[in-house]
């Protein structure tokens, strides 16, 4: 008897559902030729049975084109993804590959998108996309953003309302010396699932700042993967979340330092309450050839309930010694001393708690450039406290 002792590659178990979309479902969405190869691969792929998110079933509604408008702003090129496909603007950009939260969902975005945009920014550009789940319970968006060399872009994306499913895939290409600020806001309580995959290619001297703001959906997977492919690329991600009730969120942020002298920073601050469950993953990867890299990760979670759960999974993988990499995490409850201090000044407990939490989110809320989004976040926050 020969026993094979082979290392098993980590595979996420998958499941299939008979109600899944078929290749033909993409037809009524237009641009079928473009969608078809993705759809064919899509049907071959199962849904991930995520261990921590506990995804075991999925309810899919009929696909419909997006009703209403979701896009505004000014940029050299700014089109809905459908228009961009029709006008042949996508070209080489769609070939940028990445795994995202899971191939099933990145493929779904490309085969069955009913929203999303393509934007090329030269000089200055502002883009605002707002997806309303109340009127479009299924939003599947596919987007590409190209920030040309030396340009500055501010992108704000808000997904709000009560719907069924939101699946999103976005690729960012940030060229030499360019600057990107991206505000990614999810306020979708009672929406059953949101899966958001974002990939960033960051070139020489480019600066990327991302704010991932998460205020609910029943199940959330948020995935941001930054590839710093040329020297002096710089990335800063700030994640802010507040999860309540039975909500589950699996947040994964990944810094891949593929070039020397790159700088990365992951920062996560959040609150969990009731029976919510948040997983915060921060991965830092520094390959052999990348010297003089600085990369750090910091996470703080405030847990307000004895039934809530927080998992922190920070990982560092370093193959060059001319680097500085660190991570730190802390998880705890409200600081009693702080509460006491505020209450000694006359505040009641609820007020004090509210102030502390608002204080945590304040710098991020203040940074949001679109007024209506800022208001929505403030409202979303206070309705959760």
């Amino acid at each position: 008897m020969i026993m094979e002792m082979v290392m098993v590659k980590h595979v996420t178990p998958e499941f299939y559902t008979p109600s899944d979309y078929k290749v033909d479902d993409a037809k009524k969405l237009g641009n079928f030729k473009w969608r078809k190869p993705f759809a064919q691969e899509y049907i071959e792929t199962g849904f991930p049975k995520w261990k921590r998110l506990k995804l075991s079933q999925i309810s899919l509604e009929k696909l419909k084109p997006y009703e209403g408008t979701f896009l505004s702003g000014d940029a050299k090129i700014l089109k809905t993804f459908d228009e961009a496909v029709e006008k042949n603007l996508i070209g080489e950009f769609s070939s940028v590959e990445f795994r995202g939260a899971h191939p099933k969902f990145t493929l779904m975005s490309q085969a069955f998108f009913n929203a999303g945009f393509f934007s090329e920014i030269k000089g200055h550009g502002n883009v605002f996309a707002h997806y309303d789940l109340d009127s479009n319970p299924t939003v599947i968006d596919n987007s590409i953003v190209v920030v040309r060399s030396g340009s500055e872009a501010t992108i704000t994306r808000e997904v709000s309302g009560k719907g069924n499913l939101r699946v999103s895939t976005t690729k960012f290409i940030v060229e030499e010396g360019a600057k990107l600020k991206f505000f990614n806001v999810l306020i979708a309580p009672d929406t059953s699932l949101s899966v958001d995959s974002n990939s960033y290619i960051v070139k020489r001297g480019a600066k990327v700042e991302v704010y991932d703001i998460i205020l609910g959906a029943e199940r959330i997977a948020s995935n941001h993967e930054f590839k710093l492919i040329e020297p002096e690329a710089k990335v800063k991600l700030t994640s802010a979340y507040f999860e309540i009730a039975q909500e589950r969120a699996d947040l994964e942020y990944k810094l891949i330092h593929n070039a020397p002298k790159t700088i990365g920073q992951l920062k996560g601050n959040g609150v969990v309450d009731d029976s919510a469950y948040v997983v915060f993953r921060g991965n830092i990867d520094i390959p052999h050839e990348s010297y003089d890299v600085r990369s750090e990760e910091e996470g703080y979670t405030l847990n307000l309930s004895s039934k809530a759960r927080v998992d922190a999974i920070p990982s560092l993988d370093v193959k060059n010694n001319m680097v500085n990499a660190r991570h730190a995490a802390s998880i705890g409850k409200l600081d009693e001393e702080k509460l006491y201090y505020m209450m000694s000044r006359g505040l009641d407990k609820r007020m004090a708690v509210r102030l502390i939490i608002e204080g945590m989110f304040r710098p991020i809320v203040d940074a949001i450039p679109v007024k209506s989004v800022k208001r929505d976040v403030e409202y979303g926050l206070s309705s959760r406290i």
Partner: protein
Amino acid sequence: MSKNTKTFEKVNYIVRSAPGFNKRLIEEISLSKDEPDWMKELRLKSLEFFLKRPNPNFGVDISDFDINGIIPYLKPDAKKSASWDEVPEEIKDTFEKLGIPEAERKVFAGVGAQYDSEVVYQNIKKQLSKLGVIFLDMESAVREYPEIVKKYFMHAVPPNDHKFAALHGAVWSGGSFVYVPENVEVPMPLQAYFMMASPGIGQFEHTLIIVNKGAKLHFIEGCSAPKYSVSNLHSGMVEIYVEEGATMRYSTIQNWSKNTYNLNTKRAIVGKDATMIWVSGSIGSAKTMLYPASILNGKGARAEHMNITYAGNGQHLDTGSKVIHLAPYTSSKVDARSISSDGGYAFYRGLLRVSKLAHHVKSSVECSALMMDDKSTSGTLPIMEIMNNEADIGHEARIGRIKEEQIYYLMSRGLSEDDAKALIVRGFMAPVVKQLPLEYAIEFNRLVSMNFKSNLG
């Protein structure tokens, strides 16, 4: 002690027609050890699990490990030792440099018979029996104290825990058994060293330690000189039960020769107000997976894990710790340090779990990794699962190198570059190494100096 050797002589028959790893082999092992039926059953059950379980999907790559390779060493008539001539020069060289006495060298190299510690051992034994402490090799314990052993053996780590636990359950051999009665404080550290009952060095030894209410024990496993073995798998197991108010300290130096896979399982169940302290140093083996675990299941239980890993050329050492808080007011502290140099790969893998019922938990996990050059690799993955909010959890990790400025500073006071590096590395390891028994700490430091060609003693 010599009982075992005799047993071997008695049942020294050769298996002719049973190639492979199967039920028959396991039955033979059991028979050769003159075991009670329940132990045989446990072995067979373990075998079943082993054959069914998938490999672990994390840690080191074990794809070039062949289970058939170890079969010859499992058989009762196995040639357990090589001859001195077969021992690699590199190992002999290290013995020389470390100044290990001639007689002991052969024991570490697995070619000598029992190092002549019989006299020392007899004295300790007398002292221990006055206190009511049982300290025996594991095989004898199975025969002489079946009730106690049956109650605890592979209960902390059941055979179906993971694939290598199952393998261990099927083929375990040798190891130590310690039973400390209530409120007894064992006055000297007990060393597994005395328990090398069979010629050669245990590949699948099982250590079972029970520290009763209010008792206190320090147990030392291994030694800092490299241990050479002909077989390339070491899969031992340590099970420790620390009862109410008891204190247990378990110190290990793992220094298997660099041809070895070291896949070990160590777990302690820690009761009310009890304390478990793991101090581990890993420097040897080709590949190691080792994550000592503390299950804190009594109110006020405490665990401390201190870990130092040194991965050099050709080594992949995946070490870490596992702390499970099941009861309120429990606390834990993990201090893990690693050094990777000359192409070595050191990885910290940790799990900290705070269950729903475990309120008022305090825990801190700290990992630091020092990389000596750009050929080496270092990683950390500390997983934290916190299931209630009355917990105070802190974690910090950093990976970095020795600063040029530090070297310059030390050299400006006259030290050579090699000495400066060795001193900085030793300083980095000091908080953990200090916790090791003195003679091991000294040897650990000497090994570091050797690696840097430094003359620091």
